[in-house]
């Protein structure tokens, strides 16, 4: 089992969701995050121009069985890319164990 963390553009969230659904990855968490990167956003408030490096993105946390890792990454990169700076990142971790709380099932069984 692997844990896949992806930071994607908020505007691409729906497309990524659909792509994951297509390859039958249906269980995951997501939340809105603020972070820093190379991008700078110019803003104006009451006549004062300022720029902020605070960037808003959506964070996905997905646990999949080993056989799903490659197609999940492909689904996210294909659907989440625009080609511009700021498309996001994907990180892969080993996942030691997983449990389904209701039944006590473990491993791949717990999320399939």
């Amino acid at each position, binding site marked *: 089992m692997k844990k896949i963390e992806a930071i994607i553009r908020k505007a691409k969230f729906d497309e990524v969701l659909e792509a994951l659904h297509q390859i039958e990855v249906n269980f995951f968490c997501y939340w809105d995050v603020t972070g820093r990167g190379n991008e700078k956003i110019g*803003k*104006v*408030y*009451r*006549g004062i*121009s*300022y720029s902020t490096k605070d960037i808003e993105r959506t964070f996905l946390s997905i646990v999949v069985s080993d056989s799903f890792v490659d197609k999940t990454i492909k689904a996210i990169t294909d659907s989440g890319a625009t080609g511009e700076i700021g498309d996001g990142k994907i990180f892969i971790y080993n996942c030691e164990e997983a449990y389904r709380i209701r039944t006590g099932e473990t491993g791949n069984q717990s999320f399939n």
Partner: protein
Amino acid sequence: MKRPTELELGKQETNHLIKEKNMELLTTNNVWMMLCAALVFFMHLGFSFLEIGLTRQKNTINILFKNFFIITMGLIMYCLIGFNLMYPGEFNIIGGGYLGFAGFGLDAAAAADLTYNEGYTYWTDFLFQGMFAATAGTIISGAVAERIKISSFMLITLIYVSIVYPIVGSWQWGSGFLSTLTDNVGFYDFAGSTLVHSVGGWGALVVIYILGARKGKFDSDGKPQAIPGSNIPLSAAGVLILWLGWFGFNGGSVLSADPANTSLVLVTTCLAASAGGFGATFFSGLLYKNLDITMFMNGILGGLVGITAGADQMSPTDAIIIGTIGGVIVVLGVSLLDKAKLDDPVGAIPVHLFAGIWGTLAVGIFGASAGFDQFMVQLASVGIVGIFCVICTTIITLLIKSIAGLRVAEKEELDGLDITEHGTGAYADFAMK
């Protein structure tokens, strides 16, 4: 007993008819005036919303507290002292129209007399004027937001609303010396561009000068920084509520439901508001290449404050010109304060002071009483009121600063006044940065 002749009977009947007609007129007028008092009362919600939206979330309760304090204590103090200081009847302390006081509290005997005024009863008069008085204190609240010590703020506004505001008001609306400044021309301020808005604005200017800017408003080089407001939709609601309130603020200042005057006043008021919004948006768009909603909102208020001095004097075209210029002045004012290193989070000073001065002077430039003499009288009155307010506020503020301190500690400012001054946050279970 001698029986009345036919002629005398006829006379009695006419008198009776006149009395009944006057009574009907008074009832109609009075209903309108009470409605206007209610609309001006509603403006306090508008001020609160505007101020909350343009400041940070950590100071929301503090802002509500200040606004509640002003409307409650403002009304009580106006009842005890203010009303009789502003409308003393005769200037019995310093003659010649400078200072008079008709005693503490309201006068139930005067209220029993329905011939008090053909436009309203004594009670309505008090309530309408009392709502106005509290407005002057609210203007200070916006400018000093996010860093003033609540106890010191309460003292300053209490003295300001119960003493300074009524004294200035008495000079004009209480038939004092400004109303007959020269032999043939008196000062003209229909609903208070100077007497309400500038009085509040001058007070705000002095207090923020002594108080200093919020931490982070200017960087170490003195460059102004943006501190974006936490809730722009709430501010927008505040501005539209204030606009609605102005129907009462200006509409009620006709002091009766006179059909021609009230309708005209509502038209000029609304046109100036629209023009002010347009002027500020267009001008700030040109200046900053950005369509700034907070400038749009401040511009509407600038237009409203601008028309307030001459709302019954102007044609619709005059109102549009005055409003547009009012909006432009607000945009320039915001940038001027930034350059002067003064921190006014909500734009109270550009809106109420700068646009208030403009509106007062505009009475001498546009409309029914325009003319050089009138302009000079307006200018002199702006100066007299300004000097008096600045001196009074300086004394009050420095005195309170030396006794109780003016500013919260730096840590308290960073943590937010809600938790440090009031022990809780505004949105306890709702986390935002």
